[in-house]
């Protein structure tokens, strides 16, 4: 591989990094605050992407960005509802039980979404107004390119995540989230409204996921399984980075798309690379996890006896 190939492969992974980082952030927020591995995350996001498309078709005059915001609101509300309606009432249930609740939500959404949006056919894509043109540019005289929507995905993810991290670090809400993540009972006793914190985290997770789903939907066929791959990769990203802090999983979400891009590069992996791309990525990521069992940035917690 030439340097140009390497750079181009890295650039190819940027849109995916953006999308996955958003979904991953949502999963971490929910896991850290309510100790739930949320298998419905992908479908909540997909629901939002459908709302974006529906809004874009319904009000053709509306800017796609307004539609996206509508979709984010829908994702926020849906996430919030899942927490308030189910997870909040299941506080004393084992993690496996909570996992099952989110699976139940997943089963419901997977069947409900196509029913609700029955008018949106397979060919409707949410990408109205965002071009899929290829932008050419050069870096150190090396010609490179990136799709316009891909650039948007990456840029928007960076902005959104920077905002979330700033909020986590500097706002009262952020302190509340970190306190809840460390120890919910103590946080409650110190006067933090953990219910509000949890509900807002679920909502935010949903909204971030919608942006990821929206950009995933551009250029592919919009269907209910839009995010199933992204969700599995996002979970692996959390483990790869380490669940114990907020930024660590994002590192995982950067590495996995890089691995994916290189795994799919025919110059590196041979002409069959495309067929084996997913498999290669899973294997590489699993090996990395085995080498760093506590995550790249994680610490091992030892119980004292």
């Amino acid at each position: 591989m030439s340097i140009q190939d390497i750079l181009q492969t890295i650039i190819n992974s940027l849109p995916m990094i953006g999308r996955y980082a958003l979904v991953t952030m949502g999963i971490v927020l929910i896991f850290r605050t309510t100790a739930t591995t949320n298998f419905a995350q992908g479908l909540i996001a997909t629901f939002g992407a459908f709302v974006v498309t529906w809004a874009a078709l319904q009000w053709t005059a509306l800017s796609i960005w307004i539609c996206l915001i509508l979709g984010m609101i829908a994702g926020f509300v849906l996430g919030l509802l899942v927490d308030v309606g189910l997870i909040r009432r299941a506080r004393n249930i084992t993690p496996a039980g909570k996992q099952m609740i989110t699976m139940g939500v997943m089963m419901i959404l997977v069947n409900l979404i196509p029913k609700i949006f029955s008018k949106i056919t397979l060919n409707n894509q949410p990408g109205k107004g965002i071009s899929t043109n290829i932008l050419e540019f050069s870096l150190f005289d090396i010609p490179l390119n990136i799709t316009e929507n891909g650039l948007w995905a990456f840029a928007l993810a960076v902005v959104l995540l920077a905002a979330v991290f700033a909020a986590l670090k500097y706002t009262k809400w952020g302190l509340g989230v970190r306190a809840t993540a460390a120890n919910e009972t103590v946080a409650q006793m110190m006067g933090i409204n953990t219910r509000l914190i949890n509900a807002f985290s679920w909502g935010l997770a949903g909204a971030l996921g919608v942006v990821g789903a929206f950009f995933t939907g551009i250029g592919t066929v919009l269907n209910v399984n839009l995010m199933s791959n992204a969700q599995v990769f996002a979970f692996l990203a959390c483990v790869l980075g380490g669940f114990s802090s907020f930024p660590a999983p994002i590192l995982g979400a950067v590495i996995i798309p890089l691995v994916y891009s290189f795994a799919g590069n025919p110059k590196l992996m041979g002409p069959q690379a495309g067929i084996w791309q997913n498999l290669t990525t899973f294997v590489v990521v699993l090996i990395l996890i085995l080498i760093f069992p506590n995550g790249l940035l994680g610490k091992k917690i030892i119980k004292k006896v």
Partner: protein
Amino acid sequence: MRNTVQQATLPKRRSIFRHPFTSFILLGVFLIALQVIAIATDGLWPKTSVINGFATVIIYAIVGFGFSFLLGYAGLASLGTAGFVGLGAYFVAYFLKEGMPGIPYLLVMVLALAVSLLMGLAVGFISLRIEGIFLAIVTLGISEVFYQLFNSWMPVTGGPNGARINVYPIFQRTLGMSSGDSKRAFYMLLVVIMVALMMLTYNMGKSKTGRAMLAMKNSSSAAQAMGISLLKYRLLAFLLSTAYAVFAGVLFMSYNRSTLPTNYTIMLSLNILAAVLIGGSRSLLGTFVGSFIVFGMTPILFQNINFLNENAWLINVIIGAIIILIVMFYPGGLVQLLVSVKQSLSKKKVPAAIADEFASSAEHEITQSAPKMAEISQMRAEMAKNLSALLSKSKADSSSGHGQAPKDSLPDDVILRLNNLSMQFGGLRAVSELSFDVKRGEIFGLIGPNGAGKTTVFNCITQFYKSTGGEILYRHRSGQVLSLNHFQVHEIISKGIVRTFQNVEVIGELSILENLLVAAHHQYRCNLLQEAFNTPKVKEEEQRLRERALQVLEYCGLTPLKDVPPVGQPYGVLKRVELARTLMVGANLIILDEPAAGLNDQETLELTQLIHDIQRDFDVTIFLVEHDMGLVMNLCDHICAISFGKKLAYGTPSEIQQDKAVQEAYLGMNDVAEGEGV
């Protein structure tokens, strides 16, 4: 009180109807009857789709039985089940497809199981490095690798179009029956296999293996101290669950003859988890019901309802809602519902009531006077005669070759010697060059201010920590001298050293009696195969140890609580359970980590008496860490005082009380002048 023991040790005569196998067999008869009726009515009722639905339920129930070892017993999370089921299915698909030379079906099955065992081993080893939700996600990744293989490896798996075989194995392939007959016959075979597996699984769950896994789930520290190897039982849990899953995959393909890769996505893993969870993670019938709810309701019930047939999307919405409702309202599974119904119907006392009664009777005894205590102590001495005879049989466990030190490296009267023991955590020296001897048959106390490193010393001796320097020599009952650093933590108990924990570690999901049986883990000799078939030898062994456990409970005054789980019991009871556990071992050296912590004065008095009696009755050495100076000064023959990991003083209680360095460590430099000792 003695009478109750006598009664309990008699083998219980259970009526046939209460035998757990009866329900399994009844279920089997019901399932076979369905097929028989279908044959008799020529497929009019029940419809073929219903029979096929039950076949699916049976196959996934089998996966669930295996999964319950992981989730219900060992407490390990896995989302990799789908991949293993698919592995079994594709094995059959590949070797039995058209054009393959005639490989015997049984050989395919054996091959698939062999591969599953390898996979189970691999995942089991991974589980030692990665735990909890991390493990679940890693297994999810592994399952996804399988899915990608099924989907992409066209020449072998047929890719996205799936794979199929043309003839039913055994009945059509070997016996030459017609296709329809073979299918019906295979259904019967499925039922028989499931009922047989239910029995074997039930036996394994009730055996020491099931208890060991539960111990591991509830407290890995207690499990290790009781001689349970985490490695062995984690591997075993994964081996069993992958073997069941692959086997079920083989059956799935054999019965359905075709499969699609999309069957083996994360959804299947989650569905199986759901089936096990909503049934009750250790209940076999519950798992069957759970499998019925998750996999069976669509083909068996809903498809026969016209409205739902027209609105197919509603079916999974309903199932999803049912799963959510069950998990939220009966987090212990449907079994929990059944138990609460049963309890309200039967007149038998529920565990909570027994515990209350015990607590109030203990309340009465608070007025216990010294003569009463002496009386109890006298009774114990009587009881102990019989008990120590029983225990001495188990003491014979001789030490194997490794870890031995020369016999003359320890004086005859010393049972434990710490030789310059050091333990360093990063930059922190918790114990530094500590040396002392514990003499045979004495009660030895280790004292020191908080953070002095007392518990660290215990953890080094019992190998929970591997010390960074120094040597620990121990004299086995056989006279051999062992260097303990050469052993793994779960091997320590079989050398006659048993410990308790500062923050009591009991197995909450087992009754107090069974908690004691866990302590006898290393004395069981039967293997898993014998346990699965519940051979007479297994029964005899179980009966013998159960009897001993009952006597130990009586000795410790816990008999009324024998069937109650320890969860929620007062600290005093839990501490006594831990002590009782040490008596199951026939130990040579008992190590007690703050036995009186959290006890009130009365409980402390009783416990002091009990420790004293144990030392008197069972020819053991007791080594304890304690902050309650009254207890320490009362009980101990010798005391070692440490501070910041270094030895301050060693001597008799009165010597320690006079020691300037000890007073300084406890009271500070300036107060020594006014201090009246420790």
